[in-house]
């Protein structure tokens, strides 16, 4: 009974969302305040209803209501409450409901914050956010009902997928969804700007923060997914260019390009068409990503035909594609550039280069991800496109991108003179070359040396920017170093926060270079007391240890680690978890010792005779921890860049008045 009401609530939300869409568009067109007010109310009401539905499903999960097919499929009595809670996003119907819930929360925040602002844009923004909600509610009501019930009440559930019973797997989807869903907001503003013909800087300035925050969540979500893969899948790596990973990476790429590209529009009044196209592309890729992961279209064309949600997604994607192109075509006459670009050696040109590379990487990744599908449809043969393809195609592009990341900040707006170029590039170039020369001694392969040289160059650029800024503040305001740093970040968080994000990216790049080129590995079978040596570490197998939990047995092999001088540096327990509900699907928990320099990473492959022998794969992964530190730095930088400015901006300098400074 209760859950029948849950379904009815979803149906009501669907009807209200549809009504709200009409209210928003009509209110905006007719400038009818009452209709516009009603569109705000529709946003709140839909959010309230979706929240009630989500709470009901949570209630069903936490109180083991196995008559619900969803609960039966994704939970069990012995599952810890923590995972019962997270099972909401462990399966299809629940995760779609969770998507809708997050979108509703975002929509309410956008509506509440802008209740009295952007009066021309907001009716359309409300309507567009409700269009997305409407689509997901259609999926929930017609194709993936989370409140579907069985005719009888099963005694126990099937259990949550063991791979999801991991701390990172609880938080990773939340972060990813917060990123994904949030990117619907800038798109809604872009559509609002186009329909209301206010295509100037108003929407661009407004969406910067609404893009940065989802972008931060998406970045964190992607990195947490990598962390999960690293800890849980036991192959020594963190990223496999898997279709699902690519699905999250594609909107990240276009979103990052957009964040850079709107800076040129704000500063110089150019790239107006491109910016709306980019944010549309980002939104399109978000829906496409959800579609590909939810419909199984990339697994096989046939599984798509069997999927309930697949055709609906396809229909919505076509609607977004043609609806947007039609709108863009109608408004093209308004999107004229106000200024021109002066020179190739300008920051505008560097930003265009950035967009060119990001778009190229997006295209290559999208193409590689979908190529097996095209190949299957057109030739009948399925081709595997995995890491070797993506590394070969995207590797050099990322190298160029990091090079540009170092060059961009050194160029001034409009034009950079020869003298300024020399002054700006000297130290970063020296740093880059020096690093390259040092690195070449450690590797016969030139690529990691080139990569590290580029990283050093980009880092030196950032450091130089901070040093020059701090020195200038010291001279002009007589501030000490810390105060000067603080005032730079407080007063121009956009720029200096951005540099910190760049620094985080460099750290991640260094970790990738370390892992990709300098990983060492060995595979051994040991008896208790025997040891193996790898990369200066000595690992001794002690014994098997067993631990019984409510829904699983954990079997681990204790190992003691000594360094090359014979000093004991750690004790690890690589494990296998055998879940009662899925005994033939043991999960791996790696044994890990992390340091700033390298990780000792051990996978327990198997054992015989109760631990008389055990087989291990041992990895030494250089610099991996910098990927996670880089992630934290990236989040910190984004927060600084999006932090509200201490003083309300009173003047808007017209585009074109920007100073073209050597170090600007």
């Amino acid at each position: 009974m209760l859950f029948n009401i849950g379904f009815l609530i979803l149906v009501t939300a669907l009807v209200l969302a549809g009504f709200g869409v009409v209210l928003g568009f009509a209110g905006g067109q007719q400038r009818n305040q009452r209709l516009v007010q009603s569109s705000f109310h529709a946003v709140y009401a839909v959010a309230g209803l979706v929240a009630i539905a989500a709470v009901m499903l949570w209630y069903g999960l936490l109180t083991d209501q196995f008559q619900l097919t969803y609960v039966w499929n994704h939970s069990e009595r012995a599952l810890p409450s923590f995972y019962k809670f997270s099972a909401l996003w462990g399966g299809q119907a629940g995760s779609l409901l969770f998507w809708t819930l997050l979108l509703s929360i975002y929509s309410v925040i956008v509506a509440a914050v802008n209740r009295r602002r952007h009066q021309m844009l907001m009716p359309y923004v409300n309507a567009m956010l409700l269009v997305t909600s409407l689509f997901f509610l259609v999926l929930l009501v017609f194709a993936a009902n989370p409140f579907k019930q069985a005719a009888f009440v099963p005694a126990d559930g099937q259990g949550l997928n063991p791979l999801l019973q991991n701390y990172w797997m609880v938080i990773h989807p939340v972060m990813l969804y917060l990123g994904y869903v949030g990117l619907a907001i800038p798109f809604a503003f872009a559509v609002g700007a186009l329909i209301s013909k206010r295509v100037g800087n108003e929407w661009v300035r407004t969406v910067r923060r609404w893009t940065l925050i989802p972008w931060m969540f998406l970045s964190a979500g992607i990195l947490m997914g990598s962390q999960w893969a690293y800890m849980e899948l036991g192959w020594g790596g963190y990223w496999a260019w898997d279709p699902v990973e690519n699905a999250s990476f594609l909107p990240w790429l276009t979103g990052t390009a957009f964040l850079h590209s709107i800076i040129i529009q704000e500063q110089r009044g150019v790239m107006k068409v491109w910016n709306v196209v980019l944010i549309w592309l980002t939104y399109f890729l978000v829906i496409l990503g959800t579609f590909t992961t939810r419909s199984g279209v990339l697994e096989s064309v046939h599984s798509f035909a069997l999927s309930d949600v697949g055709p609906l997604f396809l229909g919505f994607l076509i609607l977004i594609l043609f609806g947007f192109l039609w709108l863009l075509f109608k408004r093209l006459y308004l999107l004229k550039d106000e200024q021109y670009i002066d020179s190739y050696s300008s920051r505008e040109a560097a930003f265009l280069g950035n967009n060119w590379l990001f778009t190229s990487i997006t295209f290559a990744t999208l193409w590689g991800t979908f190529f097996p599908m095209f190949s299957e449809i057109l030739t009948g043969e399925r081709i595997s496109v995995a890491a070797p393809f993506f590394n070969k195609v995207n590797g050099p592009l990322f190298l160029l991108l990091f090079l540009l990341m170092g060059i961009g900040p050194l160029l001034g707006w409009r034009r950079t003179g020869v003298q300024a170029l020399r002054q700006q590039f000297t130290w970063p170039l020296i740093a880059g070359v020096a690093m390259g020369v040092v690195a070449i001694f450690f590797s016969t392969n030139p690529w990691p040396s080139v990569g590290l040289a580029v990283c050093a160059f980009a880092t030196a650029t950032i450091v130089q920017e901070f040093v020059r800024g701090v020195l200038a503040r010291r001279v002009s305001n007589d501030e000490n170093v810390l105060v000067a740093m603080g005032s730079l970040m407080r007063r121009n968080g956009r720029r200096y926060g951005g540099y910190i994000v760049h620094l985080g990216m460099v750290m991640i790049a260094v970790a990738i270079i370390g892992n990709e080129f300098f990983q060492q590995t060995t595979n051994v079978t040991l008896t208790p007391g025997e040891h193996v040596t790898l990369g200066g570490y000595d690992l001794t197998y002690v014994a098997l240890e067993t631990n019984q939990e409510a829904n699983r047995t954990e079997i681990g092999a204790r190992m003691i680690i000594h360094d090359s001088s014979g000093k004991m540096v750690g004790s690890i327990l690589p494990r296998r978890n055998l879940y009662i509900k899925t005994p033939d699907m043991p999960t791996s928990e790696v044994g890990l010792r992390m340091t700033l320099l390298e990780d000792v990473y051990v996978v327990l492959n198997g054992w015989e005779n109760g631990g008389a022998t055990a087989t291990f794969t041992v990895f030494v992964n250089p610099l991996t921890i910098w990927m996670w530190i880089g992630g934290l730095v990236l989040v910190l930088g984004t927060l600084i860049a999006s932090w509200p400015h201490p003083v309300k901006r009173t003047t808007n300098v017209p585009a074109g008045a920007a100073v073209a400074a050597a170090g600007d």
Partner: protein
Amino acid sequence: MPTYAKRLASRENSSVRIRSVPLIRVLLFLILLALFTGATLTQALAQTPTPDTSAISADQVNEVARGLWCPLCSGVRLDACELKACEQMKEMIAIKLAEGANDEEIRAYFLEQYGPQVFGEPPREGFNWLAWILPVIGLLGGGVFVWFGIRRMTSQQAAVIASTPAQASLPSQSDNYSQKLEQELSRYD
């Protein structure tokens, strides 16, 4: 990598299989594998006894396996794959190594047996050339577009400057840095 997507997908069907590979493909693969291994073994038995693989270490096998991909589960490297079929492929690598085959010969052998799937990238031939060429065309096309776009804009700008010299007031490069910084910071005040 045993990708979680597939594992999740398999979970969606309440199945306990590790990866959701369509059953028919698994069966087909196993039949083919049995035929191939059968044929190879018969041949081997008829000609020479199976070589002793005890001298081949797991590291030697993995060295080769790191360059190969599970033909059943796209995106999983052979050395990390725990499928039975992949275990058999690794045993085959050990046999080949014991026979004295080198990396290239073993790769050629697997290519012949399982097709280009085992390399994890499309072969550079026929229709599959498209996979490689299109990203390059996209990159170059985009590059040309951006290059000429900037050139068009700079020449328009030059024309504007030429016609109205008064507007051509690009700030001098020698301006004081701290002054510029302050100017910029004050724009946000």
